[in-house]
């Protein structure tokens, strides 16, 4: 009897001191933030973990998230196109096209709102959208989660990432958001120019790149920043090459797409769209919210001679009276050469961002 009592007491003590979530020991993920970038603000309810990022990467390429198992996030955000779609409009699983160009996924961890109209206030919220969207992946989250839940590998991966059994849409979006936050581009030729210009330390690799920056690229950079040149800096500057703002950049006199105005209902927001980053711009054609410009030459032409007035045009389109900044042929060429320096092949080809396969 006494030995039985000892066993019971030992068992009770063992049970009482057991930790919750046995086996949940996620490894913190250390983001590789370039030295000249600001810190990234990570949501407190979705800390970065190695397990979460790995799961998010797998889910990013997961075609089960679409109704007919043919489409993943990467279908419209392909690595080879700097994580965007080379088509003017993406086509969903039912063959229906949207009316806005797919946005490039780069440095999204520093952005404050998402989609061209900014209707999502967080990356997690943005990721909730495309799965049930009838013109995109067209599948209820309930069905998407049920498919994932059939896969024992996913059940384990979710458990490792979140420390509890079960899969739901929130966990899917959190994992994909973690992966997307790792997609940092900061190794273009422009980054070396930026660091050099601002007397920041250059790595040995930077020092090797610096002499390859041509006089034409420097001249294009000067034009880019000049108020009396290309006047791009109002909306595209700094390491992120964009600002957090909605703008009507003078493309239409009236609007078939209300843009931000469709979300806020404010007449002053009609025809305004999120200002995108210019990073990897040479790889992300076509351009503008509706993908109307097939190449950079057309974009430069627009700002040079194609501005159109409308009641909500951004006051910073200060050359509206002359329909644009009036760049000549040589200046257009210099500006384009500078825009090419924003390409970061290390980012696009980074194996950590590719399809992990099975």
């Amino acid at each position: 009897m006494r030995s039985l009592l000892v066993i019971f007491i030992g068992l009770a003590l063992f049970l009482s001191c057991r930790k919750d979530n046995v086996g949940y020991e996620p490894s913190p993920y250390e983001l590789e933030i370039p030295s000249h970038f600001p810190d990234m603000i990570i949501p407190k309810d979705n800390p970065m973990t190695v397990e979460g990022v790995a799961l998010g990467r797998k889910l990013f390429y997961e075609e089960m998230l679409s109704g007919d198992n043919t489409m993943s996030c990467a279908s419209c955000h392909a690595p080879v196109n700097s994580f965007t779609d080379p088509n003017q409009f993406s086509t969903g699983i039912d063959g229906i096209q949207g009316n806005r160009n797919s946005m490039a996924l780069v440095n999204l961890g520093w952005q404050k709102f998402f989609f061209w109209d900014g209707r999502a206030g967080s990356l997690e919220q943005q990721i909730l959208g495309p799965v049930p969207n009838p013109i995109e992946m067209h599948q209820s989250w309930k069905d998407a989660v049920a498919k994932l839940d059939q896969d024992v590998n996913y059940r384990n991966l979710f458990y490792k990432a979140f420390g509890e059994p079960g899969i739901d849409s929130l966990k899917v979006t959190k994992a994909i958001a973690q992966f997307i936050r790792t997609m940092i581009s900061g190794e273009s030729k422009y980054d070396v120019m930026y660091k050099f210009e601002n007397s920041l330390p250059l790595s040995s690799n930077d020092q090797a790149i610096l002499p390859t920056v041509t006089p034409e690229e420097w001249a294009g950079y000067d034009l880019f920043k000049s108020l009396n040149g290309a006047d791009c800096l109002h909306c595209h500057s700094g390491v992120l090459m964009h600002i957090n703002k909605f703008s009507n950049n003078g493309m239409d006199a009236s609007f078939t797409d209300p843009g931000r105005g469709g979300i806020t209902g404010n007449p002053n927001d009609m025809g305004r769209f999120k200002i995108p980053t210019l990073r990897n711009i040479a790889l992300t054609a076509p351009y503008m919210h509706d993908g109307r410009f097939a190449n950079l030459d057309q974009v430069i032409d627009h700002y040079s001679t194609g501005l159109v007035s409308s009641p909500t045009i951004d006051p910073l389109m200060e050359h509206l009276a002359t329909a644009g900044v009036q760049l000549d042929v040589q200046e257009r060429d210099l500006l384009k050469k500078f825009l090419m320096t924003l390409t970061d092949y290390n980012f696009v080809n980074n194996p950590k961002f590719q399809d992990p396969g099975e």
Partner: protein
Amino acid sequence: MRNLLNIFIGLVFFSLSSCKEDPVKTVPDPMDELKVTIQPTFGSTALQLDQTVYTNEGYAIQFTDIRFYLTSLKNSSGKQLTQAALFDYRNNGTALFNAPGKPADFPSLLGYFGVDSSLNHDDPTAFPTTNPLNILIANDMHWDWNPGYIFLKIEAKVDTLTDGIDNFNHYVVFHVGADAWLQPWSLSGITWSQTSQYLHTLPLKLDMQKFLQNGAQTIDVKTEHSSHSLAGEEALSIKVIQNLRDALSPL
């Protein structure tokens, strides 16, 4: 046997409760806090962005953006209240800043209208992410590092034709920065209003009518409508920042 059972039950109960971790007390000690707000007005009337008001010249004007920095705010003894504050009416409403501090320590405030030159050329990515000088908060209030921050942005749409027809196609863009335009700013005899046990508030107003008509220092938006602090814009740049500074006063 019954004694043994009672002992056993007691031990189980003890063991189940003994190893529970006490919840960590995370409630910090109360701290005195000072809050400064700014209500834009046009004369004596509260002003909203995009609202139509009329200048002394009779022009209809709609302000679309009102932003500016105050920096290095200290008391007369040099005790700092906050390093930097950004007023951004569109995105933050009337809030300017909250900072730890006791009202008795700050009967006056001295600092700069604009960004102190000791901060103006620092790396905008290196400030803490909660600091208004961090590029993530500064956003487009910064020119690519040098010459530094844009001290103020006033943007507006104006109808300069007094014909009764709305036609707001004349734009006003004042972006003033650069060390040469930094202005000292001070406020004395401050009366902090107690708004809760540990919070005291100083409400200020920014009179945009005074901004346009600051005594003899008038801005005629029909002819003086653009400044980016470039060479050749000196006279307007200094007038813009001085007028805006002078438009800021206790509510």
